């Protein structure tokens, strides 16, 4: 199935800003972050089709996943 993945901030450095890729059925944002070598602890906001989601959310054909890094400095 095809999922559009959007990466924000430094997640896109050395990877990509946005792209549509083929994934296996039942894949989760955590799986995709893992494939992209993005450590889960660095993930702040996860959006699936513009809605906030958890890392273990089950993705479906045509979904758009957005990953934002956790920012906490001041």
């Amino acid at each position: 199935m095809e999922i559009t993945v959007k990466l924000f901030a430094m997640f896109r450095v050395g990877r990509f800003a946005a792209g549509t890729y083929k994934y296996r059925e039942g894949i989760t944002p955590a799986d995709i972050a893992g494939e992209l070598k993005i450590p889960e602890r660095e993930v702040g906001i996860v959006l699936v089709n513009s809605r906030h989601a958890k890392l273990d959310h089950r993705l479906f054909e045509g979904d758009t996943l957005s990953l934002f890094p956790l920012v906490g400095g001041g």
Partner: protein
Amino acid sequence: MGLRDFITAAAPAGLLPWTAQLEAAERFGLTLGKVEEAALESGFMPARYQRNRQTITVDNQLRLCRSCAVIIGSGGLGGYLIEELARLGVGNLVVVDPDIFEEHNLNRQILSSPALLGRPKVEVAAARVAEINPAVTVTPLQIAFSRENGLGILAGSDVVMDGLDSINTRLELAEICRWLSIPLVHGAIGGWYGQVASQLPGDDITPSLFGNWSEPKGVETQLGNPSFTPAVVASLQVAEACKILLGEGESLRHRMIYVNLLHMEFDEVMLEPSRTAVGE
């Protein structure tokens, strides 16, 4: 001659010069802040705020003069928050930070300088405000904000500014602001990136912002913080605070601005799960 008559006589064209404000404070035994409040009540703008006019009316300047902002953290974000709120004319600032200035602060923290290394950040903040706008009252608290002392620190304030550097303390801050129904302007930075959002009474921004949170720190531990990111994010926060205090414009309610200065992109993320995010 009473205070009002003195101000009226000293304020041709509606502007009260700083020298007259000083003289009034001395002659009538008042703080500079009280003289400022009296001038604004009579429709006179202290001349130092003349370039605020049109953007901020005399009535709104009076609202700012009577307002209290609590700034939690006096570091990268906090320094700019304090500087801008004081110059804007927010009359009462409470500054909370347990730390002293260290060498690694010098690349970005506007209140730091080599001569001030080792000095408490809140003490320096109070001295800075006394220098740039002595009509503003600063309450420096050299303590770490916590769930235990938070209610006492925030109670009675009109807006709370997040200049923290820890995510778990941010969660506690947001929680106490919700208990007290005080607006919170959240800001956080890391490297080229930052985020800003406002939590107004009745809202809870934390599930959206930190719903996947597992670490006490974010990307800033790897990326550090350059000089410009805190300035950008803190300025957005102060614009939010100004609007919240004045009840004007559109605030970042139910939405967050995610700032990417490396690619110069500002993305809007909706914070209510029931709403649809823009930019997808």
